[in-house]
């Protein structure tokens, strides 16, 4: 054990000296977590999206006024959108959206209100700014929703007059519309339990990047074995008075310490700088330690089968990114369903993120054991396979 510790101390000194630990273990995960949080955080968290809309009323009717005034106005009041500008002409509106002053413009054509009242076709045109895909999609959704409401009213009113067999007049139509508007919606969407277990974007991206880079950075320990062979120093170590297993143990200790240092640094920095909320410290510690052991297992498997350090590094990078993608570190793979969803469940990343979600929902240490054991199972399988070629790993 003494020899293993000496080898680990030597390796850590080398890694700190060549700065690879700082780059891959701290800077990269924290940097990417910050970028993802800033870019996608507001959308993912359901905060106000920073889009602005314009509208041009070529109709001048009552229904068009309801849309530009009540509908768009309420979106601005509720800070769902940043601003709403009503343009006096189509040319002004097109100029504004072409310059990117607004993300999308609603065009209410002449005859819009009359078409709605008479049961005719009443299209709302949406013109989007070329670089604002999300803003344009939101604008289309707003227009579709408004059209849906109008169509619903039309169907309700038409049904009443059809049942009564009477001829509709405008006063009766207005009265009916007023009554229909008072009826509460039969279905509403409220907060559901699962939402409580969702990580906020800062925590999610911090955790996702941390676990992805964990699987990259632990290679600096175990793959050092292959570097020792290429440098010729492995023979020197094997000729020294110590057990061969001490060499492997030393490299494993190096990987483990690097993993702990990296994860601890990322957790502290993202908590302070990005406001990430990792949850119960004991639960986080259990998940982190399980994750490090799983990463170590994968590393040993790669080291056992690779012929050179370069080949192993490439294989490890591919494996780390593949597992991260399958495990939902970049996007919610579980929603894909089918084979992809099933495959995601073999990745430690998926269970790591699920465990953190449970912690965010208020679960304590014991509650996340269901996420810890699949990670440890992954570690056991990979280490077991690596052990079949243990002798080869320390052959001169």
């Amino acid at each position, binding site marked *: 054990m003494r020899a293993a510790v*000496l080898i680990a101390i030597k390796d850590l000194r080398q890694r700190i000296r060549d700065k690879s630990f700082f780059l891959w273990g701290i800077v990269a995960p924290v940097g990417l977590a910050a970028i993802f949080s800033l870019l996608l955080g507001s959308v993912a968290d359901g905060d106000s999206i920073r889009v602005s809309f314009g509208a041009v009323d070529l109709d001048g009717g009552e229904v068009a006024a309801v849309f530009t005034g009540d509908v768009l106005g309420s979106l601005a009041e509720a800070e769902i959108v940043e601003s709403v500008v009503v343009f006096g002409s189509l040319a002004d509106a097109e100029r504004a959206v072409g310059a990117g002053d607004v993300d999308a413009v609603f065009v209410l054509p002449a005859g819009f209100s009359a078409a709605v009242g008479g049961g005719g076709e009443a299209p709302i045109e949406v013109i989007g700014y070329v670089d604002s895909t999300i803003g344009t999609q939101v604008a289309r959704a707003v227009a579709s929703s408004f059209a849906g409401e109008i169509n619903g009213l039309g169907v309700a009113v038409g049904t009443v007059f059809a049942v009564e067999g009477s001829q509709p007049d405008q006063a009766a139509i207005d009265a009916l519309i007023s009554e229909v508007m008072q009826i509460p919606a039969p279905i509403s969407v409220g907060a559901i339990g699962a939402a409580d277990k969702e990580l906020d974007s800062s925590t999610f991206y911090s955790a996702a990047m941390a676990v992805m880079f964990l699987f990259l950075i632990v290679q600096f320990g175990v793959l050092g074995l292959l570097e020792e062979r290429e440098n010729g*120093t492995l023979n*020197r170590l094997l000729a020294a008075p*110590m057990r*061969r297993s001490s060499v492997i143990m030393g490299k494993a200790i190096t990987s483990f310490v690097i993993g702990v240092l990296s994860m601890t640094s990322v957790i502290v920095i993202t908590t302070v700088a990005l406001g990430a909320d990792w949850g119960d410290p004991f639960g986080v510690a259990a998940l982190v330690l399980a994750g490090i052991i799983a990463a170590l297992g994968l590393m040993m498997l790669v080291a056992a089968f690779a012929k050179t350090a370069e080949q192993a590094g490439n294989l490890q990078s591919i494996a780390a990114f593949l597992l991260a993608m399958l495990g939902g570190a970049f996007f919610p793979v579980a929603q894909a369903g089918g084979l992809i969803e099933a495959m995601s469940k073999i990745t430690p990343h998926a269970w790591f993120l699920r465990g953190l979600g449970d912690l965010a929902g208020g679960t304590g240490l014991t509650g996340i054991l269901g996420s810890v054991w699949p990670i440890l199972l992954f570690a056991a399988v990979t280490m077991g396979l690596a052990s079949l070629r243990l002798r080869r790993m320390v052959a*001169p």
Partner: protein
Amino acid sequence: MAGNILEARGLRKSFGDLVAVDGVDFHIAEGETYGLLGPNGAGKTTAISMVTGLLEKDSGEVVVAGRSITTSSTDAKAAIGYVPQDIAIYPDLSARENLDFFGRLYGMNGKERSARVGEVLEIIGLADRADDRSEQFSGGMKRRLNIGIGLLHSPRLLMLDEPTVGVDPQSRNAILESVERLSQEGMAVLYTTHYMEEAERLCDRVGIIDHGKILAEGTRAELVALVGQRDRVRMSTNDRTEAAAEALRSHAAVDEVTASDGGLEVLVRGAAAALPRLLELAAGAGVGVTSVEVVEPNLEAVFLHLTGKALRD
């Protein structure tokens, strides 16, 4: 055998169909410098790898400092200082850090280790560059550090595997002087090389190895006696070498004549006395001799005698 620091008996190692070492026996006495001399691919490195406990033996036994050595031995390995053929140092550590790390691995304690690291840095001439990263060193300096690591724990037996391959003449001489000094101080040395002159200069006894077998073993004098104290005369000729060879064989002092492209190689007893007559015989056969070189018996001749080929082939 009492007084032997190393005894190797019946060593054998195969890699697939290739028999790299085939029944090798040798021993090294305390304080003795023993050379394994042979061409590349003769089995020297495989043999030394088994002796250091790096490589599993197919069969045979190695005893170092009274203890049988295997790949899992620890006590026997502590008696050995190993200097591999290729430079094996950590380039991103300084010379002092490299030495300190291996000192710790060999169980040297703080003060002893610190003092010994200083001593070895002086011995290998790197005291003034001790704290520079070894990646900044020249090839020769790296070679010296490579040897220094092997010396660090004052081993009873130092094993050097072709330590001068690819080394400039100045560094090579420094390495040879270091080995001579260690030998004089009483350290036993196992030295593998394919340079005949290194084996002759350094070694008390030499084992000549080829195709995994030790063909002959002994002191320089004992080995040279195998070729019968005959001198070797190399003649460069301009033509008709076969005719000249035939004529030279008629001389009573000539034991063997080998014709090759552009010359003759003659094994002769008493070259100085016989040379004038040999030149006359060549001239009589109508052969023009352009140069003559007389080589006294050495290990090269022994190797040629034993294998029928030159050591450098």
